[in-house]
């Protein structure tokens, strides 16, 4: 073997330029306000501590190759911590494993990996619970009517999508394949796609009374499609996110309920953990539930909720 040695970079050594701590953030896309709020909050937190935040993203929801390359490049760049919202819960595990092998702290935000232990820690909403709350509220709102649901899911292979879906079914008391489920499809959490999917589902059957949406962009798409067919009045739309726009939609009666998440908290806590790791080498662990709040102006018995006024004070962007 040759005598020369090469310094492996990114392997936990001090970052090269002036000792500034580097934190990497990899979101699903740049075109969802949620991830923008997450990024802005992470940046603010990093700025406070004089750390560098590099924010990368996939080109579209499902761009696993892009997320993998982002992780790899951040490791090379000397990021000591990487915060990631994986598009696909299994697809990028290899890249995460390599990063951790080089001593990088990897924290999942918003979306769990599968298995959870693939990352050091996860700061996220309890998405099953968020789904369950949406389901429970919708069930109560329907009262005596039997549910006829269409389900707007997220990205194939993402835990967020599965957990919310299953939580919702648990909350409303249905199972996949039940007659009460009229149909559903993947929306990638995008408004346009959700609108298209809903339009298509309505083409087959307009007897629905409930729409499950995994996030607020999907809810807006669904509403637009229902509105165009003058069906918005007969349908209870439930959602998850808690953006200011989403809360406003609840206030305006377009959406019956939204389950608020706290992305700023996830981001801030993630960055804090990164700073702590840089200072002391201490790694966080496990799943940290950042909490949810049910937002509606029509509180129903058995479900703790906040009104939209509260929602507008606490929404994230």
């Amino acid at each position, binding site marked *: 073997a040759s005598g020369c040695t*090469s*310094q492996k970079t990114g392997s936990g050594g001090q970052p090269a330029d002036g000792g500034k701590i580097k934190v990497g953030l990899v979101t699903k896309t740049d075109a969802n306000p949620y991830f923008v709020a997450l990024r802005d909050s992470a940046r603010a937190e990093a700025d406070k501590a004089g750390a560098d935040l590099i924010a990368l993203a996939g080109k579209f929801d499902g*761009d696993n190759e892009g997320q993998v390359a982002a992780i790899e*490049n951040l490791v*090379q760049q000397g990021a000591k911590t990487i915060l990631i919202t994986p598009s696909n819960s*299994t*697809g990028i595990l290899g890249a995460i494993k390599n990063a951790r092998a080089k001593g990088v702290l990897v924290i999942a935000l918003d979306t769990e990996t599968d298995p959870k232990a693939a990352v050091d820690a996860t700061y996220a909403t309890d998405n099953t619970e968020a789904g369950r709350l949406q389901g429970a509220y919708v069930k109560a709102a329907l009262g005596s009517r039997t549910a006829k649901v269409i389900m707007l899911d997220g990205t194939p*292979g993402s835990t967020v999508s599965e957990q919310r879906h299953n939580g919702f079914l648990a909350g409303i008391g249905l199972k996949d394949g039940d007659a009460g489920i009229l149909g559903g499809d993947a929306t990638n959490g995008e408004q346009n796609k959700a609108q298209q999917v809903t339009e298509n589902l309505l083409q087959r059957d307009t007897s629905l009374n409930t729409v499950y949406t995994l996030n607020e962009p999907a809810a807006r798409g669904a509403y637009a499609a229902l509105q165009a067919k003058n069906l918005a009045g007969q349908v209870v739309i439930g959602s998850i996110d808690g953006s200011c726009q989403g809360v406003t939609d609840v206030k305006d009666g377009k959406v019956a309920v939204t389950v608020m998440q706290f992305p700023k908290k996830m981001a801030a806590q993630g960055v804090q953990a990164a700073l702590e790791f840089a200072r002391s080498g201490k790694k966080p662990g496990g799943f940290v539930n950042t909490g949810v709040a049910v937002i509606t102006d029509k509180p129903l018995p058995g479900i703790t909720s906040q009104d939209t006024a509260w929602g507008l004070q606490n929404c994230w962007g």
Partner: protein
Amino acid sequence: MATLKERRGSLSEYMLRTPAVGPVIALLVAVVIFSVTTSTFFNVDNLSLVVKQALVIGTLALGQTLVILTAGIDLANASIMVLGTLIMAKFTLLHHTPGIVTLIAGIFVAAVLGAVTGSVVTGFRLPPFIVTLGMLTIVTAVGRIYAAGQSFPVTDGTLGFLGQSQYLFGQIEISNGMWLMLIMYLAVWYGLTRTAWGKHVYAVGNDPEAARLSGIQVRRSLLGVYVIAGVIYGIAAWQALGRVPNADPNAFQTGNLDSITAVVIGGTSLFGGRGSVMGTLVGALIVAVLRSGLTQAGIDQLYQDVATGVLIIVAAGLDRLSRGRQR
């Protein structure tokens, strides 16, 4: 016949003849800039990473180059590849079929789709742009129907084989995928420049009527190109599973344009008949170097996108300049 003065072969003349020189310069410039401005770009680990990141698009772009050399274009390549990954991973996952079998099945389907494209293009003399646009729509939908909203993790060793690495001199990481890409590029380069098949591909792209009058079987030549490109897309599916061991119907939505970008940055003309696969290899590397270098320089995604867009244009401009105002 009178012969005019000829000056000695100059550097610029050499560039004119060797189409990949412009892109190589662009690549070197980018590497030098990032090596100087960042401390983390230029080291063996990162350089081998850059190559890994270029594997999938680089392989797609190899097939794309063949099609573009015939004055065609392939908008469906990434969708064919994604369907390939789904076939390979889903079958192995659900039916425990050995990876080698589903691998071959995936490549075979990709080749058949190439044959379909090629038959329509040659049989009805339709523009490849519109045929592959139709194929893009069809194949994407078929992939999604087949995946039924799922994505499929890869566990089989054969399917993941290209993601494994050895270390040269204990230092330089070389993945199996890199070897395969290198071999494929060399093989296609050999075919294009050293065999009659390649001469015919160039001629068909350069002037199909002249090729026909010269006795070349234009249709057969074209059909062959689409089938070979299909096989290459099938192998790209294998590369993709090596990179991300998960077959996802949502993946690589911009793979078609990304591969075309690599081809064009590599100096191959969209009008056919001019260019080289080695240029494409360099083009794919340039894109990966940009992404890596900009990240090392601490630039955020959206600003990276802006920079990438600018640099796509600049790289094309450099290539243009290096070949001068010769014609």
